[in-house]
């Protein structure tokens, strides 16, 4: 809360209530290992991890305007980083996830140097190409199992706890902490100078540049932070799965298409949107997943309907209609609406 003169306009009764609600939720989820069974913990873990991906993608697309459809590149690198470190060094998997994420974040800088030469649709396609190149490369490296992939050594998984219950709790807490860090990371970035620069760039890049905003540096910061978070999430996802293959790790449908679905139905460029989208996705999945192809058809239908009738997504619609803002973010827009 650095800003002082304007901050009063960011807050309202709704945001105070929402913050209390967020705090209660955090407490409930943090204490889940005490009251929830393994099945609920696993579902929540899955939810947190998908939510992390959705928020990160939204951060990249909704705020920095970098429409990437190649985020599976970072999920895959994070996953392979974890499995490779676990197989060849025997480190604790959570430490491996952290190391892998740092390495992936470093790798994302040369990736950015390549991709940032392209704009808009060209950037989107080339981000996908990059992910495909990584997938094909992984298929041809026998040390990481080639195209048949590899399993996490049993000892590595047991390092998280000898009993399944302990293991579920450990992974659950790791996913929960990762989500909290990602959410608060995004939240504070948006409130910082970078956040202001981002909004300026999103609204009009040329104008922002001529006002002295270093657009490329700002985008790079977001890109690298997102790569770090996505890799960590990827590592945790595959820590649960126990097996990684190039097709599953670099899967565009699992790690980007579904994530786009969540963000789009929830509302691109809003902090709350991905959360709503992820909840809706999990409701649909829990209900329809056993119906085979019908499941995918209905997801597609929902996405199309929302894009036609509510291009700003569910939360975008709610916000525009009732001027509702749960979290004290984006104060400039809010102050305009509230006045």
């Amino acid at each position, binding site marked *: 809360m650095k800003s002082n003169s304007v901050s009063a306009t960011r807050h309202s009764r709704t945001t105070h209530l929402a913050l209390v609600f967020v705090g209660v939720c955090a407490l409930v989820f943090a204490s889940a290992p005490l009251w929830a*069974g*393994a*099945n609920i913990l*696993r579902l929540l873990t*899955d939810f947190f991890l998908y939510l992390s991906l959705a928020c990160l993608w939204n951060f990249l697309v909704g705020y920095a305007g970098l429409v990437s459809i190649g985020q599976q590149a970072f999920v895959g690198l994070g996953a392979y980083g974890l499995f490779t470190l676990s*197989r060849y060094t025997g480190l604790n998997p959570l430490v491996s996830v952290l190391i892998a994420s740092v390495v992936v974040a470093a790798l994302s800088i040369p990736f950015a140097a390549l991709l940032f030469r392209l704009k808009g649709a060209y950037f989107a396609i080339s981000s996908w190409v990059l992910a495909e190149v990584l997938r094909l490369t992984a*298929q*041809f490296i*026998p040390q990481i*199992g*080639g*195209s*048949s*992939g*590899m*399993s*996490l*050594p*049993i000892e590595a*998984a*047991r390092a998280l706890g000898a009993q*399944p219950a302990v*293991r*579920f709790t450990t992974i659950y807490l790791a996913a929960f902490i990762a989500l909290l860090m990602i959410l608060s990371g995004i939240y504070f970035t948006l409130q910082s100078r970078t956040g202001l620069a981002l909004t300026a760039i999103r609204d009009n890049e040329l104008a922002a540049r001529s006002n002295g905003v270093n657009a490329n540096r700002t985008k790079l910061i977001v890109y690298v932070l997102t790569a770090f978070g996505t890799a960590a999430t990827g590592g945790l996802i595959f820590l*649960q*799965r*126990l*097996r990684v*293959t190039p*097709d*599953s790790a670099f*899967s565009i449908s*699992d790690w980007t298409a579904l994530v786009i679905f969540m963000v789009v139905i929830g509302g691109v460029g809003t902090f709350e949107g991905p959360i*709503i989208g992820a909840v*809706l996705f999990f*409701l*649909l999945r*829990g*209900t329809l997943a*056993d119906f*085979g*192809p019908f499941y995918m058809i209905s997801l597609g239908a929902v996405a199309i309907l929302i894009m036609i009738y509510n291009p700003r997504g569910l939360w975008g619609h709610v916000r525009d209609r009732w001027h509702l803002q749960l979290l004290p973010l984006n104060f400039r827009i809010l102050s305009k609406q509230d006045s």
Partner: protein
Amino acid sequence: MGIGTKSAFSKSLSRRKVLTQAAGVGAGLLMAPSLIRSASAAGDPIRIGFVTPQTGAMATFSTGLDFVLESFRQAIGEGIKVGDAVRPVEILVRDSQSSSSRSAEVAAELITNDNVVLMLASSSSDTVGPVADQCELNGVPCISTDVPWEPYFFGRGGNPETGFDYTYHFFWGVDQIIQTFTSLWSKIETNKVVGALWSNDTDGVAISNPEHGFPPRFKAAGYELFDAGLFTPGAADYTAQIAKLKEAKCEILTGVFNPGDFATFWSQAGQQGYHPKIATIAKALLFPASIEAVGERGYGLSTEVWWSPNHPFKSGLSGQSARDFCAAYTDKTKRQWVQPLGFKYALLEVAVDVLKRTKDINDPKSIVEAITATDYQSIVGSVRWQGGPVKNVSLTPLVGGQWSKGNGFPYDLDIVDNAAYPGIATKRPFAPIAW
């Protein structure tokens, strides 16, 4: 959010009302499966998880799954006798969507939500591997089939000395398929030049490996290998490869294809005048539907046969022979038998045999004890983990087959080579492709 808001009962559908109702319906639908589940849990059944690809690239391998499940339910009737009580058996079938991620997810769900005592998995490494991994880690016994055993075992980082504790598999392996292919080829006079193409996917890359795959074994068997390389699945033009195969005068063609790709390749080969004497292809030619895609050019193509109505085996559960089982399938569905039918049924049979011999069904270790002691005659032959190549693998027979004009259906798969398993009768000698 949205639930519990005061909704105005106006006649027009307000957006809020629609949202509220949608949320209500959503919540209702979400609860439905759990209600059904708790209702059926009444009779204290034994729960078995069964993960298999019903949609996606490997969906054809689950052809006839409903028939298999129904036959199985008929065969066990009220349930199975465990200890003193007869307990019903509940098979929880889950679709892996042919994806390794989804397989891991549904397996974990079956373990944690449904508390299955035994897991079954079949068809392709992408389904069986992740399911077995979940079971091994969570200490749930798992029996699987329909994946060559080397990818199953070594693909999961298995160590032949120690093996796995909870996961067991029955199927054939790479050595057997080589033996079958080379035995087929030895029956016809050729220049012994083998041309090979491999699809660039999990199976193709594994099988074309220059150290562990087919190539060194063909050479060891006295064949000269001309490797036309990996091709991208879904490729539309094979002119370059066909030209190379013609130039190298490959009288024998082999490799790994997906069914659709082989149909494309084979019609182009015909048009461009590449006429090998023998074409023995793995994976692409298992189903009548794949031959139908090639049309009359499909006569004379050869492939591996894991199971057929002519296999002299009987189910230890229902007493049905392989022939009767296939006849019942055709009778019921009006469709031709396919190879995975037998293995799917055998998987369920073996599970029942294991559970019947288990001392304490709630103790995974006790179930594993029963698995290792298995000596069972199933509809696909003997299943016995003592004396396998590694402790977790039991081998099933593999013979060679050739497609010919059918009797009743357009194409029949005739067994033409039984070098490895003389007990399985051949129908006729292996013949070169009639061009």
